[in-house]
């Protein structure tokens, strides 16, 4: 290898070393997102309630919405069949036949709002108004004995609801599960 080749090889090593630590040049083709664009797509809700929209609902208001939009798949009063059971199963998780429902298993009430709003009803996702989502969420929480039928769920109250199974999850990351 000539001195020139050695120098070239060293340069390649230096450049590839740089690439390895994050100095890859990019074409910078992302354009600035507007607040309106973000607002239209930002549908996620954290357990602290960040992302919950204005609006409200109670179990009393949610019952007829559930019967019309949810019951065909989830059964009367969340009893399940043909699809997931949403109510009951309390105290079964350590048994041989655990029943995982919103009430017995889900750790956060905010997840119910987030999931119903983004994915339900199955054939018409993102079709419910925010008030309807709050009301259906309240109805499911009430059926599980977690809130009263007249308790209003909104951006302030929903994150304060403590789910019965909240403290039975063990966060593994960044450790190893098995």
């Amino acid at each position, binding site marked *: 290898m000539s001195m020139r080749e050695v120098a070239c090889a060293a340069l390649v090593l230096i450049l590839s070393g740089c690439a390895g630590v994050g100095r890859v040049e990019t074409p910078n083709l992302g354009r600035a997102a507007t607040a309106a664009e973000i607002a239209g797509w930002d549908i*996620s809700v954290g357990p602290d309630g960040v992302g919950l929209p204005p609006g409200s609902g109670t179990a009393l208001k949610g019952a007829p919405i559930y019967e019309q939009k949810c019951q065909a798949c989830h059964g009367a009063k969340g009893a399940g069949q043909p699809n997931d059971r949403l109510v009951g199963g309390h105290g079964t998780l350590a048994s041989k036949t655990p029943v995982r429902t919103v009430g017995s298993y889900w750790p956060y009430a905010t*997840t119910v709002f987030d999931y119903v709003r983004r994915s339900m009803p199955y054939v018409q996702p993102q079709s419910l108004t925010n008030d309807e989502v709050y009301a259906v969420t309240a109805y499911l929480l009430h059926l599980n004995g977690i809130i009263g039928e007249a308790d209003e769920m909104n951006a302030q109250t929903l994150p304060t609801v403590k789910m019965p199974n909240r403290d039975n999850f*063990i966060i593994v990351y960044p450790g190893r599960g098995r």
Partner: protein
Amino acid sequence: MAALAASGLLMRRTTDAAAAEPPEVPAWMKSPGAGFTDYGAPAKYESKVTRTLARSQAGTTGSGAIRTPLEALEGTITPSGLHFERSHSGVPDIDPAKHRLLIHGMVKRPLVFTVDALLRYPMVSRVHFIECAGNSQLLYQPNPPNLTAGQTHGLVSCSEWTGVPLRLLLEEAGVERGGSWILAEGADAAAMSRSIPMAKAMDDAMLALFQNGERLRPENGYPLRLFLPGWEGNMSVKWLRRLKVVSAPTMTKDETSRYTDLQADGKALMFTYPMEVKSLITRPSHGMTLAGSGLYQISGLAWSGEGTIRKVEVTTDGGRSWVTAALDAPVRPRALTRFRVPWRWDGAATVLKSRATDDAGHVQPEREKFIVEHGNNAIFHCNVIQAWSVAANGEVKHVYA
């Protein structure tokens, strides 16, 4: 008439079969073959090699999973058309010209990318498996499933994925202090979403655009998917449309009510991201029949989401003795690895098993020990040793042994 036609067909077939063997010249050499095709397909004689055991939730068509027929395949790359599929609300029909990726939240510059823009970014190609966290879950059941290797373990596939390192786009957006998680969301009707630790996003996460050299298949995320090597497949969000940088996990439905591992004591493990070391013998396997005693090659697959396969051991006597299998090179991290062992079957009933070890030192556990430790109530992260019984008549079946 029908009977005559049928017997004529039978005779012609018999004649053709005879004519193909030496010294006769086979019919397909006596005239030119078929012309060119725009897009190739498998041989018509292989039409039985398909994805199997599709299960969709009641009243739905695209909410469930369909599995790779592992027992019918060789090597380590899964043909794209046989890659397993797990979808939560069907496969969206996304026009790539209209698809957008939004990066926002705790970033200095919220950005929107078109697919064309992403295609201009520096890319890398990597061979990796992807495995549904619920793969092999039937082995939690008290009785062995009467199903093939693919029907039992076929929620794993392996491809060459090409795309843009996620880190490059996050650097362009400028992650703010405290931005330690990312909410990733798909553009399907479920708007499927998961929380991704920033450390993984800045390490080997990729925005995949290509699979096995061609653009992603629709059922695998076209035109854009997140790809997180080695981690539970659900986190590699398909049809990716949004990445929101946040300070804590969003606790979506699919990281709380699903993809958590209920233990025997009623507690549940959460955020068990890497798929553990696993292997299985694909040939011979359940549903096959050995054609008499003699020499066979045992062939199988091993992989680990926590590193590279270091060793696969195989027993052909129900666990009394183990031999080290040969591994086909190259053995790549977080990729399917093919192992092989020659086996001279003496014709007596026996049990075959394989046991993988990765370079982090994790060893695939025996089922009995695993169930004692974790119970039967979990659905995900089952990586136990698979046993196949071979009967004296050559029939191979799934057993717990």
